[in-house]
């Protein structure tokens, strides 16, 4: 990815006990989200990802069927 790499204003939080393991976030933003192998619950790989993945993270947050992903700041 030839995106800006500085850790930006983007901050992400996930709520594991809301997660329903759909995995849509992993498809949308594999740089930022993964799933636990046994139960599929979200693993946040990077809570402060570079600005270049913002669009993908926003997509993941909107797609999440459990509303378990929040963009804490970075408007």
């Amino acid at each position: 990815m030839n995106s800006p790499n500085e850790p930006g204003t983007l901050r992400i939080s996930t709520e594991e006990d809301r997660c329903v393991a759909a995995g849509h976030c992993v498809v949308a933003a594999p740089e930022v989200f993964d799933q636990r192998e046994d139960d599929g619950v979200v693993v946040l790989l990077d809570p402060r990802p570079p600005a270049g993945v913002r669009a993908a993270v926003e997509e993941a947050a909107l797609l999440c069927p459990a509303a378990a992903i929040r963009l804490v700041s970075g408007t």
Partner: protein
Amino acid sequence: MPGCRHPPRERDVSVADVAESEGAESEGAAGADVVIVGASVGGLTVAQALRRRGFRGSLALIGDERELPYDRPPLSKEVLSGQWPPARTRLRERPELDGLDLDLRLGQPAVALDAARRRITLRDGEALRYGRLVVATGAHARRLPGQAELAGVHTLRTLDDSARLRDDLRTARRTVVVGAGVLGCEIAATVRGLGRPVTLLEPAPHPMERLLGPTIGAELARLHTEHGVRMLTSTPVAGLVGADGRVTGVRTASGEVVPGDVVVVAVGARPATDWLAGSGLTVDDGLVCDDRCRAADGVYGVGDVARFGASGAAERGVRLENRTNATEQAMFVAADILGAVARYRPVPYFWSDQYRVRIQVYGTVPARSSIRIVEGTLDSRRFVAHAETAGRLVGVIGWNSPGRLRTARGLLHEAVGPEPAAPLSGQA
């Protein structure tokens, strides 16, 4: 979705433009560039996606319930069991909603639409003009005849419904759930979790058969039976039985009465299109939309209410009642409003949590498809199954196998053709 990150071409959408082109008067009437009717996940996601894509026009979000927009899947599980307080279902808290700069009208249903004049009427009589209209009014629970006259009979669609049912379950001696679809099965599992006896009635030979097919439906029946549910399949219901204004049971088609002091009717939903009568739009078990989710010039349908992909008499289109479709369709429509042009061709997805089992399904499992277990075994209670029709993959079912299901969507896209150019991702 991967491989389809086309930044949308921005296009101004304003009431003024529309008024000019339509020759309608713009003075004096309240309104918004985009009016969204329905403030559940579909409607709210349209608003969020528009703002994230940089839309700066005016937005109105109209909802018939008083609560801030909330999520419905937990209502039959975490909320009904008491594990979550109702407020936990909120999709966004008030400050986040304020950040969207919305004219948010809650507790105020739209009662009429005039598509030719581009205006809707709210219950209090106010008229709102729109540049673009998004219909995301969802669906209403279907009821049984006589239900309204009997205490103890419930449907479950809203937070209020969930609270009322939970109250009744506290003192329920025998609960009967009518309909073993996703909702009925989840409710039965929750009632068992509360330690209460429950009978589940279903006309088909297996629970969730239309969604899972008979092989895995039989596995689901076994699961419920093991957890103490009295499962009566192949048992159509004739009606409710009551005494002194309170339900006492459910009469089956064969004449047997299954006793119950609490009855939950989970026999499906009908799209909320009553308010569209006389609107000029076509309604046929849902708001009829084309493959761009457009019901008419400037009018879109999103979520449970929308029958999309219709084209003349030959193609009736499909209506998907699931959480993921509401979101994906909302994001698609927001992109279309802002000028992206694509066809909406989702891979259907739903999940259901019952006891400690998570069932996930991509695609569909048609009645005559063959089921092949591709990972794990039925007995191990952890498996992935493929549904195939004429040798072609049409559905992927996961049973407690979420990690392994991630590739399913990609597999189905390969099977049904190239990834549709759904522009779900855009620069904010």
